[in-house]
């Protein structure tokens, strides 16, 4: 034990030795490589890089046409006609056809398959998608058609401004119907039952392995622009092990934990990004006492978010004042960040405010204790929960907080059954639009676990759906956001940090905040 010597200040070697190979460490296992079932972000990364769709996202977070060579819009933007590239081929030599998309998207919408992402065609505005998912219309009625082998016509219910970005997500990837049917149950279970339309293909892999090797797909239409020949994804859940792998030179890109940040802050390979999740407390408004807004506000004001991020987490996370996270959406007219425009003083640390609200709440309710639920999927939650407990008990004299740690599935179960008081939870957007977060607070939404209901909020959300004017829509959503945060029904705490070690000579491999985290096609080594 005496050999554990701290403060070993060796700087990790700066660049990869190898010019065309990188190893990226991921912390989630691969659950499936079937595009519509791939749920964990490692899975969607692999799918997106091997089964390219109509779009990809470039290094500057901009959607770029991928398998589609061009797109024409008509009918007030409600019909989009995509032309599939002539040279788009599957790795088995089959041409990629429009039908591959129709087939794939119908599977995605099929309520029987119940893909976790089956809300996405609806979110993209594709015609009838929501009704199909709800079982009201047959799958065939989905607004996609192949009018020729290379012509894909998509019909929309309404225009969705961020549709291109959405279509870059892995679940919209094409599926070769013939191959799929031949592979049967084995489809995507291992690398010999997969074919690829994207820049990479998978070498010697089966579901359950904790390493995936991607090698350049020679049949890829844009193969000449793919610079890195090999990408290895290693799954290591322990960030310290990952850091050691980085130091050993066996990894080139690893995620760090807050504790490791203090060790690597000065390292030239260190990159401190923010992540795409907002961490917040969700109150169960069905619980007597917790429906009292003053109580919730008192709790919110007693928490010093800055202290959490700088002293406890230390991972570059930032205090959060908005449900919509930073860097996700910009004001279409001013270019200001949505998160900065949503302001309220409820989330500033203020013992005085807290006391004021608490005194008010004490008169209205006799709730003097509640349980704070959190799960064990990240070690930091326990620390944050312990901190909240201490703060609340300090500033709200007479209030007692009980901590309860459960498995994540148990927490979500309690949330969906509303058998909890308050829970520490987080939400990440599936696409870069405020609705990706706000829509779940609509009173009818299944994911509205706090059971918060506000008719004005609902109305604003419905309006925004129908609005094609981006500026106007932005305003509606901002207003809805403010209603939500002023209610303190789900006080945000912080937006998580995403500190990483990345070899300094790797270029153009940003981590995208929403959707698929990595597109390796654009990356290169200098």
């Amino acid at each position, binding site marked *: 034990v005496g050999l554990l010597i701290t403060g070993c200040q060796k700087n990790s070697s700066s660049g990869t030795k190898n010019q065309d190979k990188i190893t990226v460490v991921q912390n989630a296992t691969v659950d499936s490589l079937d595009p519509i079932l791939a749920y964990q972000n490692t899975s969607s990364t692999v799918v997106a890089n091997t089964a390219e769709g109509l779009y990809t996202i470039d290094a500057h977070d901009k959607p770029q046409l991928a398998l589609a060579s061009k797109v024409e819009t008509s009918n007030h933007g409600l019909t989009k006609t995509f032309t599939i590239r002539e040279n788009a081929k599957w790795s088995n030599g089959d041409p990629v056809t429009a039908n591959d998309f129709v087939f794939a998207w119908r599977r995605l919408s099929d309520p029987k398959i119940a893909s976790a992402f089956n809300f996405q065609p609806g979110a993209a505005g594709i015609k009838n998608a929501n009704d199909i998912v709800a079982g009201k219309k047959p799958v065939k009625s989905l607004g996609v058609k192949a009018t020729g082998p290379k012509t894909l016509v998509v019909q929309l219910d309404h225009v969705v401004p961020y549709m291109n970005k959405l279509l870059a997500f892995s679940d919209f990837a094409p599926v070769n119907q013939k191959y799929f049917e031949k592979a049967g149950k084995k489809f995507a279970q291992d690398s010999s039952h997969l074919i690829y339309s994207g820049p990479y293909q998978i070498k010697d892999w089966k579901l359950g392995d904790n390493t995936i090797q991607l090698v350049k797909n020679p049949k890829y239409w844009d193969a000449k622009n793919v610079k890195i020949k090999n990408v290895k994804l290693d799954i290591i859940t322990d960030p310290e092990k990952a850091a050691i792998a980085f130091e050993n030179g066996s990894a080139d890109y690893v995620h760090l934990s807050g504790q490791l940040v203090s060790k690597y802050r000065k390292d030239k390979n260190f990159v401190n990004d923010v992540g795409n999740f907002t961490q917040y407390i969700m109150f169960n408004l069905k619980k007597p006492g917790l429906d009292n807004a003053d109580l919730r506000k008192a709790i919110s004001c007693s928490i010093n978010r800055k202290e959490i991020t700088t*002293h406890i987490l230390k991972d570059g996370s930032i205090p959060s004042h908005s449900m919509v996270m930073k860097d996700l959406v910009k004001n279409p007219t001013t270019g200001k960040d949505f998160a900065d425009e949503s302001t309220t003083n409820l989330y500033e640390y203020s013992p005085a405010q807290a006391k004021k609200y608490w005194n008010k709440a004490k008169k209205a309710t006799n709730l003097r204790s509640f349980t704070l639920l959190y799960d064990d999927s990240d070690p930091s939650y326990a620390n944050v929960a312990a901190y909240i407990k201490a703060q609340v008990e300090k500033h709200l004299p007479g209030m007692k907080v009980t901590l309860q740690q459960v498995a994540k599935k148990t927490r979500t179960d309690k949330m969906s059954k509303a058998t909890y008081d308050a829970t520490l939870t987080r939400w990440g957007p599936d696409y870069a639009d405020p609705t990706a977060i706000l829509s779940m607070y609509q009173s009818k939404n299944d994911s509205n676990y706090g059971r918060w209901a506000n008719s004005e909020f609902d109305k604003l959300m419905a309006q925004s759906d129908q609005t094609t004017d981006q500026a106007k829509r932005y305003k509606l959503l901002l207003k809805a956001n403010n209603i939500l945060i002023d209610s303190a029904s789900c006080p945000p705490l912080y937006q998580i940090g995403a500190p990483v070690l990345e070899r300094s000579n790797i270029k153009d491999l940003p981590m995208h905040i929403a959707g698929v985290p990595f597109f390796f096609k654009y990356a290169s080594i200098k």
Partner: protein
Amino acid sequence: MTNIENNDFEFAHKSETVDHYSGKSYSYGQLVWHRFLRNKGAVISAVVLIIIALIAILAPYLSQYSPTTPYPNQSNLAPGVNGHWFGTDNLGRDIFVRVAAGTSVSLRVALVAMAIDLVIGTSYGLISGYFGGKIDLFMQRITEILSTIPMIIIVTLLVLVMKPGLVSIITAMMIVGWINMSRIVRAQVLELKTSEYVLSAKTMGESDIKIIFSQILPNTLGQIITTFMLSIPNAIFLEAFLAFIGLGVPAPLASLGTMINDGYTQAIVYPYMVIFPVLFLALIMLSFNIIADGLRDAIEGS
């Protein structure tokens, strides 16, 4: 022949009809105690254990810090800084006080679980072994089935179904922990019940209950104590193991296991977060093991 006396060659006539016992007599307990005291390793371990227990009990009074209240701006201080002997953790809590509190949680878990095991295991083994026949057959089938289920299955599932916490950890240990004890006791009883002194008590008309408690039990005590002592480190380990796979006592409570688990992923950055709980855990385990060994040697007699 220096000092021959006159009567030397006369008969001494020291006829004794009754045997007389001279020499000091030790009770069995004293004998074991003496033998134990001669085992240096075991005595040192016992002292270490007592010191650790004292630390666990007294630390809250010795230190001005609380094991649970976070002081985020004091987080991750190195040992010695600001009077934190073992440093502070990610929430700025004093590690020394936390280790002490964790030790007491670990020890309590182990002791409670083992005490219950002791009661269940011993009585199960006694009954099964002494009455034999169909009762034994039936009871043995139960243990046989229970013991074919890997322990880890029972423990993990139980802790998952119930909510993680002291109660469920202890229950889980109870369900599986007693089997070993019952086996050992049963084997002993089977051996002892055919021993001549038990048969003799039977032929004198002693009741079964009395035979079990006054003839058999005292003779199995040595084995029981040894097994008990050896199961304590097992229980501590089990608790630490549960903590390690994320099923430990819930925060802000900390056991040594949960502390090690927390510190584990920071070992290269803040090694002291894991060194101290590991040190305490290892010392406790080591001490119990050595004491158990010493006790066994003392009981079996060398």
